[in-house]
């Protein structure tokens, strides 16, 4: 493999045909791409078949930031909890305004590309969207079609009736991760 000083670029093609050119270090944040690049089986354009262009843009944004963080963190030499807080705040900001269907696509993309950090951000967001909601609210939010008959649904509800009871004043608790 050639060790050129110039930054090596990688080209990615989204499911709807758009081609993105990114630095190799950015692409390598995705473990799936890292494996491919290391095995040298990705010389032309890498097709990302299950990710649409707008989603891929968001994914690349995330990867770029990760590269930036890892390059700057080598200069600060101690594990400071403030950077942890900052990272959390950054994650929240990154996920702000992401709607439910984009979120699902992001989860699929980060799962497929094997980007753990992004997957966790997505899962956190999803948890906060579902927690404290009633079934119908979740269905409305994600366009889930109820394919139970009313009798079937009633029966399932009765199996664990307590879970469907009215929520007390619901206080969101902090993630216990």
């Amino acid at each position, binding site marked *: 493999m050639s060790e050129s000083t110039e930054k090596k670029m990688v080209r990615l093609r989204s499911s709807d045909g758009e081609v993105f050119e990114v630095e190799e270090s950015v692409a390598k944040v995705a473990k799936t791409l890292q494996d491919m690049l290391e095995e040298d089986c990705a010389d032309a354009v890498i097709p990302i*078949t299950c990710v649409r262009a707008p989603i891929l843009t968001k994914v690349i944004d995330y990867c770029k930031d990760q590269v930036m963080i890892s390059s700057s963190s080598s200069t600060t030499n101690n594990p400071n909890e403030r950077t942890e807080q900052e990272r959390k705040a950054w994650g929240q900001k990154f996920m702000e305004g992401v709607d439910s269907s984009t979120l699902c696509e992001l989860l699929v993309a980060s799962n497929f590309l094997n980007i753990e950090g992004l997957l966790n951000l997505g899962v956190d967001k999803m948890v906060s969207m579902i927690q404290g909601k009633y079934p119908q609210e979740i269905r409305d939010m994600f366009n889930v079609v109820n394919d139970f008959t009313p009798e079937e649904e009633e029966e399932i509800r009765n199996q664990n009736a307590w879970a469907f009871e009215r929520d007390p*004043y619901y206080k969101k608790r902090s993630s216990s991760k």
Partner: protein
Amino acid sequence: MEEGPRKIAPGYGDRISSLPEPILLHILSFLPTKFAIRTSVLSKTWRHLWTYVPTLDFDDNEFSFFKEDEEPMDTKKAPTDLRLFKDKDRDENFLHVVDEFLGLRNRTDIHKFRLWYSGALCAYRLRTWFSIVKKLNIKEVDIGIYKKQGPFDLPLAVFGTKSLETFKLDLHCSHLRVPNCVGFCQLKILQLVQVKFSSKYIHEKFFSNCPTLEHLTLRLCEFTCSAPLNILASGLKTLDIYQCHGLRKSEMKLKAPNLVTFSYVFTSIAKRYDFSDLVSLAYAKVRVRREGRGNCSSLSQMIRGLHSAKALSICCSSIEILAAEKDLPTYPMLQNLERLNLIAYVCSCSYYLKAVGWFFSQCPNLNKLVIDDFETKSKHMGGFICFQGKGTFRRYIGKKIANWLKTLQNVPLLA
């Protein structure tokens, strides 16, 4: 490259149900069991999904035992706690649900068990639960109570649970009672919050009986009856002591050759410190303050014990207490320190400046100084912190210290 797991058409539709099952389970595993169960009526895809979730998470603040469409009890009083209209039946109902679930899931498929409860947990029930938990190959247990009660008995079965790696306990200022001579045999993470320790109820060697422990957190804990805090743990990597009280009359002993991070924040100064063997220590954080007319002459014992640290975060008031001690060693206490984070308070900077100057002479190998303004929003500190002029203050103290440093020649500082 292969095709993605499922082709998703752009536009709208039920995207969440077509997510890969491992992701859905991952999402459900972060939800309280109540909300995981609710997904079972979303659609047929979701019918049994929650039963594969490897966590059980019950919080009785999430229980109301009123029908979804029933008139809310006290909408006007809503933000007040539900404890207002809580009765015995409700408690029993909650406990029954937990009983039933633990009984049902009597298989080896639960990784995490979380239980928060506002009533009194009787020892018998706890014992029963933990005898089940013991068989479940459980990795993490998180128990909390919302109400202060008599001594909380930790059942013996907890200690015998071989698979247990993480144990979190919040007792809301109740005493913890532990059988004599036991410890966690496989535990890696122990987090105790609002726990009261008394030598009457807990053996002083308790923390030393956890050979595999890597992370220990003590938050808002209280030590009564001069109970000593002895931590002799060979595997310990991080020790985090935050806002603990009552150490003034007791001793703290720490021996942890693998300790990397030590944090001692807003905690009273103990009568005596015996720190030894902290050879791996890299990062330490110390923030204490004067407590009444208390004896503060032991802080240097702690600082001397931290001599291996390469980075230290310390507040000005700690330095001031340290500098006021009478029997200080003649040699520099922090020979290995390279980086110093100084946490400064607005109201007291010039007052502390002399002490801070002295402190630099204790760190001959310092090559980086960072001055932080207070980073906390803690209300517990009362009038101790003044909230004003952050940036200006940083510049002010920075300038003062820089000026001061010019007068000193033997401190090679790149401030």
